[in-house]
C-alpha cells in the first residue's frame, strides 16, 4: 500500500513538472473560460429578470461565474488524459510499465495531477471573475469551493484517462472528448437555472453530475440555493461519481496498457 502511494506520487510529480514547464499551456487553457465569463457573461446580462424569477438577486455574471469555474474544471481535466496517448507513443509508458510500479499507480498519479492542474486553472478563473467585479459574500468559501473543484475534476480526469487508455489514436480521443464535454456542460444549470429548462431536459440534467457540482458551488459562492437539492445530497452524488470514475479508470487503464499499442 505504501509503495502504491509512493508510486502514485512519482507519476504525479512528473505530470506537475511537465505542467509547470509549459507556461503557454497554462494560458491557452485559460482562453476559452475567460471568453465565456467575459463575453457570454455580458451578452446575457439582460437576462437578469429571468434569473431573478428563480430567486437569484445578483447580476447574471455572478450567476454564471460558478458555471464557468466548473467549465474550466471540466475541460482542463477531460483534456488532461491526452498525454497518456503521447506517453504510449513515445515510450515513456513502456519505461513505467517495465519498472516495478503498479499499473493502477500510473493511472492514479495521472488522475490526481490532472485534477490538481484543473483546480489551479479554475482558481485563475476565480481571479478573473474577481477582477471583473464578481463579489463573494464570504471570501472564505473559496476554500471549500476549491475542495469541490479538485474532487469533481478527479472524476472527470477518470473519464479522460479511461478514454485515452482505450483510444488507439488522437482522433478517436478528441472525437469522444468533444462528444462528451459540451453536452455535459450545457445539460447543467451552469448558464441558466434548471427551472427554466423544459421538463424533459431538466430530467436529463438531473442525471448529470455536473448539475450537482454547479448547484453546490453556486450555493457556496452566492449563498442562494436553487433546484431544491440539499447540500449533503449533492456532495454524496459527487463523491459517488468520483469513486466510480476513478475505479473504472484504474481498471480500464490496467487492462488496456497490457495490450500492445
Amino acid at each position, binding site marked *: 500500500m505504501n*509503495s502504491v502511494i*509512493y*508510486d502514485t506520487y*512519482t507519476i504525479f*510529480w*512528473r505530470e506537475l*513538472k*511537465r505542467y509547470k*514547464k*509549459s507556461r503557454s499551456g497554462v494560458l491557452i487553457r485559460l482562453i476559452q473560460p475567460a471568453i465565456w465569463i467575459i463575453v457570454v457573461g455580458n451578452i446575457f446580462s439582460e437576462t437578469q429578470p429571468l434569473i431573478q424569477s428563480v430567486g437569484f438577486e445578483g447580476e447574471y455574471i455572478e450567476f454564471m461565474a460558478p458555471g464557468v469555474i466548473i467549465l474550466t474544471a471540466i475541460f482542463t481535466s477531460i483534456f488532461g488524459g491526452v498525454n497518456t496517448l503521447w506517453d*504510449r*507513443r*513515445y*515510450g*515513456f509508458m*513502456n*519505461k*513505467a*510499465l*517495465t*519498472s*516495478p*510500479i503498479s499499473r493502477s499507480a500510473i493511472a492514479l498519479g495521472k488522475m490526481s495531477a490532472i485534477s490538481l492542474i484543473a483546480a489551479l486553472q479554475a482558481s485563475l478563473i476565480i481571479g478573473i471573475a474577481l477582477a471583473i467585479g464578481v463579489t463573494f459574500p464570504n471570501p472564505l468559501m473559496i476554500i471549500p469551493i476549491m475542495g469541490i473543484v479538485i474532487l469533481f475534476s478527479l472524476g472527470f480526469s477518470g473519464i479522460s484517462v479511461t478514454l485515452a487508455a482505450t483510444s488507439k489514436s488522437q482522433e478517436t480521443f478528441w472525437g469522444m472528448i468533444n462528444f462528451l464535454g459540451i453536452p455535459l456542460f450545457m445539460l447543467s444549470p451552469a448558464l441558466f437555472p434548471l427551472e427554466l429548462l423544459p421538463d424533459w431536459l431538466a430530467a436529463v440534467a438531473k442525471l448529470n453530475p455536473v448539475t450537482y457540482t454547479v448547484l453546490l458551488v453556486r450555493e457556496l459562492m452566492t449563498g442562494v440555493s436553487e433546484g431544491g437539492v440539499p447540500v449533503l445530497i449533492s456532495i454524496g452524488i459527487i463523491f459517488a461519481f468520483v469513486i466510480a470514475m476513478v475505479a473504472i479508470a484504474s481498471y480500464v487503464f490496467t487492462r488496456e496498457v*497490457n495490450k*500492445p*499499442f
Partner: protein
Amino acid sequence: MVAVNDVSFSVEQGEIFGFLGPNGAGKSTTMMIFTTLLKPTSGQAIIAGFDVTKDAKHVRENIGFVQQETAVDEYLTGRENLILQAKLNHIPKKEINKRIDEIMDLIELTDKQHQAVVTYSGGMRKRLDIAGGLLHHPKVLFLDEPTVGLDIQTRRKIWQYIKKIHIEFEMTIFVTTHYMEEADSLCDRIGIIDGGKIQVIDTPQNMKNALGNEIISLVVENNDNHNSFLVELKKIEFIKKINEDDSKLILFTSNGTEVIPKIFQISSNLGIKITSISLTQPTLDDVFISYTGHEIRDDKSKFNRKIEHAKMKRMRA
C-alpha cells in the same frame, strides 16, 4: 499471427549478448516478451531467475530497458529525467543523488544536467536514456538498437559507454542490433534471428572462423556451362561453402591465394568469362548471409504489405 516461433536460448550471467536480425525478424517482439510488455502465447522465459508471465513484478525489479526510440521527457531537465527513473525503480531516497552524480559523470553530461532535454543532441539524449536504464543497477540490461540513427562517432562513443558500464556494474547486457560491426565489437556472443527463428548462436570469432578465413567474390557472365562451373568449383578442397546471388558468386574458403588461380583455370576450360574477382576477410555480414541466404535488410521479394502492417501495429510502442 506468429512473430517469433521456436526461439530457445540462454544468456550467461555477465555477458553481452547480441541479438541480430533484419527488420521485422522478431527482435523487438522477443525483447518485449523479456521485458514483460507482451505476454507470450506459449513458451516460457526466465529473466534473472523469474518467469516473465508468472512473476512479472520480480522480473521488472531486476531489469533495465532502453527502447529503440529514445524515451526521455523533453520538458524535464536531464537530472529530472534521472530522478524520475530512480523513483520509478524504487532506488532508496538517500542514494538517489549519489547515483545520479555518478552516472552523470560516466555519461559526461554533468555540466548539462540542469538544462531541459529539448536542448540536447540525439547522442546526448541516447546517453541519458541508457543512463536511466541502468541507474538502479539491474541484473539484466536490455538495449533495443541502442545506436540506430546515430552518426558513427556517437555510435562508437555509445559502445564505449556500454562496455564501461558492463565492466563497472557487472551486469548482463542483452542488445539487439542490425549493425554487424556493432555486434562484432561489442558482444561476447551473438544469436542470429531471421523469420522468427534462431539460426545460430556463437561468438563472433567462431562464426567467422566457421566460414573459413577468407572470402572470394566473383562476378561471372552467365553461360550454358554455369552449372558445371559450380560443380567444378565445389571440387576445390579449400572451398567450404558457395552462395549464389544472380551472377555473383561468394565462396567461403581458406588459402584464397591458391584458390584464385584454380578458379581461373576452371573458367577458361569452360569458356566462362569472369568480370571481377576479389579476396576479402569474412565479416559478420558474410556470416549473416551464409546463415540466412540473404543480406541483412528487408527482403523486398517477400514483402507483404498486410503482414508488415500488422507487425508494425504490434510492435509500435
